[in-house]
């Protein structure tokens, strides 16, 4: 956060007893105890079965609902207590992870055990696979954000890039009757929005957030207009995109649980996972990555050392557009035909994932998976007639990000020069 308030400074200078770790620990204890008490009381004595398959059959982990809810709640509380006791800071992330997973499992034990008879099971394969499918556009989108923002250009236009990618993928893919051509077109479509973003923010110094917002609206309008003019009247000619079929990887796809979820997806799943690794390595282990990060943190210093700041920003923003465009195509070239405004806010969840994942590719992946899981959980819970309104689950990514930027779950810090145009001189 670029704006430092007076409180911030005070906290940084003199931590006192209530450090961030202790505050979070206290929160975790509270949540854990409440989960144990509340979910434990609400859960039924029926077994909550977590099956490693797509239905009720197959191997399963079963636990008594009440027992599970209380047990996992207490585990979360214990992790919180450890944080509260003041363990070294390196334990912070694992313990926080344990606490979160504990509360989630406690919640699931209640929900699954309280489901109507015969539905007291949670097919983990479905859940994991659904999580990855729902997380796909988020992974691509947040990677696009990483590429842009690490080099100092705020990318609020992820939504527009995804949408343009989806549209171009569908349109060109249909006309060419070839999914690969569609994929290339999708990348170029995302890059088109990126190009506008880059030219206007880097060349004309328009504020990056303003430009991002306007470009989102532009993309919604443009794709919506062309959809109504071309695709709707003649869907067969313009909106019947070819599909990439699932490619199960031999051997690996036979691994229980992970195999069906991770190794029998479409090209987009593999591409997303490969991109995470590639961008991570490139960002932290290559010359390009060092330059990108230096341009995002201190462009003047980078310029002094001979890095072409503006050229690098152009290149990264365009790359980001291509990545996001491919992410948009993961809708139209694998799942659905194009519809108006079909991204429906995923671009903003991707932005949230980027921030929640602290501007790192792996962090973005984990955040995207977490948000995808929340999404999938909503679908599952409404399928078992849960009393939890799906709307509140849908809020979860946004609320989590709010907590993250408010510094309640650790401090997130953007690249120092993120959002600041660079004027040479």
């Amino acid at each position, binding site marked *: *956060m*670029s704006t430092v308030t007076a*409180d911030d400074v005070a906290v940084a200078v003199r931590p006192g007893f209530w450090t961030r770790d202790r505050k979070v620990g206290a929160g975790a204890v509270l949540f854990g105890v409440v989960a144990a008490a509340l979910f434990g009381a609400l859960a039924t004595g029926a077994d909550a079965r977590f099956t490693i398959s797509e239905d009720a059959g197959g191997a399963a982990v079963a636990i008594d609902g009440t027992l599970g809810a209380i047990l996992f709640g207490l585990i979360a509380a214990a992790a919180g207590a450890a944080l509260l006791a003041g363990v070294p800071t390196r334990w912070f992330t694992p313990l926080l992870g344990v606490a979160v997973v504990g509360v989630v499992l406690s919640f699931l034990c209640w929900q699954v055990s309280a489901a109507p008879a015969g539905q007291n099971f949670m097919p983990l394969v479905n859940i994991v696979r659904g999580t990855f499918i729902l997380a796909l556009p988020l992974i691509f989108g947040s990677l696009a954000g990483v590429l842009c923002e690490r080099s100092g250009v705020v990318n609020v236009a992820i939504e527009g890039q995804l949408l343009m990618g989806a549209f171009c993928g569908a349109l060109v893919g249909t006309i060419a009757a070839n999914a690969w051509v569609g994929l290339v077109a999708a990348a170029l479509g995302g890059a088109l929005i990126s190009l506008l973003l880059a030219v206007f923010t880097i060349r*004309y110094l328009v504020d990056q957030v303003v430009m991002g917002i306007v470009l989102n609206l532009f993309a*919604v309008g*443009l794709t919506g*207009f062309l959809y109504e003019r071309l695709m709707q009247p003649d869907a067969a000619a313009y909106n019947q995109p070819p599909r990439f079929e699932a490619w199960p990887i031999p051997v690996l796809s036979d691994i229980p649980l992970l195999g069906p979820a991770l190794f029998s997806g479409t090209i987009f799943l593999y591409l997303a996972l490969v991109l995470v690794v590639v961008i991570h390595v490139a960002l932290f282990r290559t010359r390009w990555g060092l330059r990108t990060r230096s341009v995002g943190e201190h462009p003047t210093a980078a310029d002094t050392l001979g890095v072409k700041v503006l050229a690098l920003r152009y290149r990264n923003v365009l790359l980001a557009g291509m990545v996001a465009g491919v992410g948009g195509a993961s809708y139209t070239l694998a799942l659905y035909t194009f519809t108006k405004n079909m991204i429906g806010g995923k671009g903003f969840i991707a932005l949230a994932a980027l921030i929640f994942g602290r501007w790192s590719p792996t962090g973005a992946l984990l955040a995207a998976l977490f948000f995808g899981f929340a999404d999938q959980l909503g679908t599952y819970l409404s399928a078992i007639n849960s009393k939890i309104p799906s709307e509140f689950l849908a809020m979860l990514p*946004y609320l989590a990000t*709010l907590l993250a930027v408010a510094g309640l779950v650790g401090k997130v810090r953007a690249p120092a020069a*993120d959002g600041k145009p660079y004027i040479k001189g």
Partner: protein
Amino acid sequence: MTDVNTSGVPAPRENPDREHAEAEKVSTADASGDAGTTNGDAVHTTGEATPLGATAATAGGAPTDRDGGAALLLTLFVRNLWSANTVTVTVLAIVLALVIGAILIIVSDPDVLATFGYLAARPSDALNSSWAAVSDAYANLFKGAVVDPAAVRDWINGTGGWQPVFAPISETLTYAAPLVFTGLAVSLAFRGGLFNIGAQGQATLGVILAALAGFLLPLPPVVHLIVALLAGALGGALWGFASGFLKARTGAHEVITTIMLNYVATYFLAWIIVQDGVHAPDRTDAISRSVDGSAQLPRLLGGDLRVHLGIVLAVAATWAVSWLLNRSTLGFELRAVGANPEAARTAGISVARTYVLVMAIAGALAGLGGSNMVLGSTATALTPLVVAQIGFDGILVALLGRVKPWGVALAALLFGALQAGGNRMQSYASVSLELVTVLQALIVIFIAAPALVKAIFGLRAARVARAQMSMAKGW
């Protein structure tokens, strides 16, 4: 007389090179010292002259020759008109957007495109059909937004009533009213150095509370409307306060928090519609009960025309925000914080308090905008899409209005007109309403990059740097 007239140059202030070139032109034109001193005064009163301009003005000699005065003024006027000032850039941005819109209409029309297939053989076909498609669309845009000549003719001939004549204006004002509020919400925060992307969420909360107050509270007519409006403002203020508070206490960037709160509000709206007591009992789809008649904004021109009291409130709000910004202590503090938070803090202004207040007031304005959507004539019940896009459009309106209250009101009027005309364009010329979104976005893109418009039209540069577009502060 030769070295007099460097002072007669009111417009350019930033670029010394250009000022120099200008000075040369003016002195070769043998202009009068009279005009020179007049304009020199203008420079002084606006108080924005660069040191260079100021010295030139004071160095201006005594007036002797009055003959060339009028001619010079005219030249300067024309030159200023064609310089990249706010009005010129805005008009040209609209023209550019309409041109691109026309291209979109042509390339997306299969019939017209077919004529381009034999362009070389008969170019007139392609040109005629393109012209027909574009002019049909834009003529309907105009007829739907301003006035339909046919209706005027009917009225004069006595075959039609007066309502059809004013119907387009009525529609325009109806669509403009909520945009004024959300535009003001965005620009007020802008002036305080905050980028309020959350007008959508704030308007959503406003819509919810206004509607709840509208059908849950049994109150007498006038009181009911006031209470419902206040409830809407309160809902928006609450949402704005949340962002302002997070910003002030934790430094969380308001762009991120407002985006997130937008979606929280959207899902909250989706949830509350289907709750018992809110959901319309006789309906299966997601729609709430209707707001009581006593809580609805009265229509201004009778039942046939949709324009309602909201537009009057919008003008009042514009005046109030203008007063707040330019005449009140809070407004001064707000602008000081917006210009430079550190300096404002040094001067003893509480930056945190200002942030919270600004966001709460901005939220209240957006909330009122939301109330307009459910208490006015666009809808009387909550649906998932009841807020439409007024929050996001408000951002565009604020930018187009150069974040100044009366500018925002004019920009909202333009956007309202585009919306109203777009409806007619969709039904009469079968050009999708989405074109309006494209036009709106394009206009703002061009507005935001005056340098681009300048380059395209070969304008002289002028005072556009004052447009306060840059909020470049990063996350």
